[in-house]
């Protein structure tokens, strides 16, 4: 005899058929497969005066010679007369995950006698990348994957004076935090003792707050309580005091990246010595995707809205269409 049960019946008694399992979590596997196949893009900009260890830090972060200096032919470092923007791209791979890393260097920043408006070429570069992306996006026949040259993250190097931010630092960060994710770091932090470091960091955080500068991770973009909890911990620690090195030394039987001095060896990846590891974890291991998302869904969108409105207004006037029609449709 056969018995017929209700539509959602109990699970099968024997092993095997699970009545209530469809299998939609397989979607995650497909997503991961697709992401791995496509590879990732990351564009990091480094800004700071010459001599603050920007190139070395990049090399340390990616454990390979990715900086401009490593690729450049000339041995000598000359301060250029104006700010230059130099982009170098590398294809790197780790455990099957491929990444196109672009490091954008800004030699000449803050090095002149008169540094007024030295953020302008940098702002322009960042906006030019947004413009390029927008142009691709509104094209009638667009590419399947729009190449992403937008600056995801701008690491700003603060010289380790130990006192407070300089006017140049404040000006730059104030302006640029509105268009790009800024991650401030205290460069060459091995000149500061731990107390000096803590004092300096507190001072910097105060000044950032006082000037209304929102650095990454921005409070207003925390998505939920979990994010907020993680990001609050980070916000209490920035700016990270970093030391970079691409030289290895033998310490206690292990080979480590560090700086060897007469009074001891500074281990770059040792959190008791400096905060490089935190910076690396933030940028690469945990928040990389988030940094890219904020760039594309917030900074880029703001740029796009501005651009579309500019265009609409001008063309609307040219075509005699009243502006309120346009405004009502958007949003």
């Amino acid at each position: 005899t056969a018995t017929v049960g209700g539509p959602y019946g109990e699970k099968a008694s024997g092993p095997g058929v699970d009545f209530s399992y469809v299998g939609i979590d397989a979607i995650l596997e497909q997503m991961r497969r697709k992401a791995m196949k496509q590879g990732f893009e990351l564009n990091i900009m480094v800004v700071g005066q010459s001599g603050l260890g920007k190139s070395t830090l990049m090399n340390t972060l990616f454990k390979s010679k990715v900086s401009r200096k490593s690729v450049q032919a000339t041995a000598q470092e000359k301060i250029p007369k104006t700010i230059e923007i130099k982009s170098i791209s590398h294809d790197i791979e780790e455990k099957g995950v491929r990444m196109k890393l672009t490091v954008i260097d800004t030699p000449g920043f803050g090095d002149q006698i008169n540094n007024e408006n030295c953020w302008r070429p940098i702002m322009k570069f960042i906006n030019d990348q947004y413009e390029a992306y927008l142009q691709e996006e509104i094209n009638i026949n667009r590419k399947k994957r729009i190449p992403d040259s937008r600056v995801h993250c701008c690491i700003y190097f603060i010289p380790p004076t130990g006192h407070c931010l300089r006017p140049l630092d404040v000006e730059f960060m104030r302006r640029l935090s509105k268009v790009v994710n800024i991650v401030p770091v205290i460069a060459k932090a091995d000149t500061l003792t731990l107390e000096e470091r803590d004092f300096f960091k507190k001072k910097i955080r105060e000044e950032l707050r006082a000037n209304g500068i929102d650095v990454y991770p921005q409070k207003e973009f925390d998505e939920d309580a979990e994010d907020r909890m993680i990001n609050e911990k980070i916000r209490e620690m920035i700016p990270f005091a970093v030391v970079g090195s691409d030289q290895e030394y033998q310490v206690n039987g292990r080979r480590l990246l560090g700086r060897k001095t007469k009074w001891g060896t500074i281990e770059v990846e040792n959190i008791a010595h400096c905060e490089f590891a935190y910076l690396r974890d933030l940028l690469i291991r945990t928040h990389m995707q988030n940094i890219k998302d904020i760039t594309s869904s917030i900074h880029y969108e703001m740029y796009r809205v501005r651009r579309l409105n500019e265009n609409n207004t001008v063309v609307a006037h040219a075509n005699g269409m009243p502006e309120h029609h346009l405004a009502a449709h958007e949003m």
Partner: protein
Amino acid sequence: MLPLPNIISKGQFPNPETPGYVGFANLPNQVHRKSVKKGFEFTLMVVGESGLGKSTLINSLFLTDLYPERVIPGAAEKIERTVQIEASTVEIEERGVKLRLTVVDTPGYGDAINSQDCFSTIISYIDDQFERYLHDESGLNRRHIVDNRVHCCFYFISPLGHGLKPLDVQFMKAIHNKVNVVPVIAKADTLTLRESERLKRRILDEIDEHGIKIYHLPDAESDEDEDFKEQTRILKASIPFAVVGSNQQIEAKGKKVRGRLYPWGVVEVENLEHNDFLKLRIMLITHMQDLQEVTQDLHYENFRSDRLKRGGRLSSHGYILPLSPAYVLVCQLSSLHLPPPQRTNLCLDTHRVTKQHRNATVGHNGRHICYSSETEPKHPELRRWKLSY
């Protein structure tokens, strides 16, 4: 040490401090975490004559009951009816992954004595979703774009004929450039194995002959494991899938199975030897991403470029930027006669629906109803609207 948030899956990587290890190999996990939080959206359209078992099949596929209060109209009512579009949305959660599935049903298709015009409504619906998405994508506030574009269309073919009917051919040709078409042989328990194979071959020949473009499963990548490759081969060889649906549980040979009880035996829905139901389900789930991608990269982009070509032009001042699509659409929308935004929103935008129990008022012709209902908590949440075009 900063407490590492659990987006780094433990045990997946060797000691992170091995020299040379940077850590961006964790990037796929970061992306993955975000998708899990966000959840997935998928819209499936089912088209076929009445009585081919569409509703039962959909319920079986997703182990839900999308049509709890269904009333099947009699023949007299069917004469009056034109094709309608009914969208039902269900949120399914499994192992932490959320899927918001919208099933678009098309009752009335092929019912009328003269079915000459029964697909214009369906095509308008598909186009309207594209239009809406284009509008949202070109707008100023893009934070919460809802994707209601039809990602896949199951077209039900009757097992009783000798292949495709003229209506089948016409319809598939009309939509194959707008949506991914997956032909399905319905109620396959009326066919013996040989009849089923013959019918499949016949259908495939006719599809070729008429130049109908159905959805093609992508070949497995060379770096996939053998099982996956074998599975893909089997799936590809079984198209069109001959399926049987059922939500009833029957006891057969000591275990409970979903099936249909006949005097001569039990047809087991989830038995690969009895029908292709499992294959259809596996195909849908494993290719959900691909179906969405093809919709986005091919069907939607074709729609978009056609649309913009018709509407876009350089401004008289010769700006380098072409007219912004937003602007193009504003001009176009004012001259098109689309249904007013409120009605479409009620139908498709789940964010706006509040959990109210409103009384359903059914008009005589079945039109102009809007109601929402909720099933008991233990079933997946169900929201449902009716809209007639």
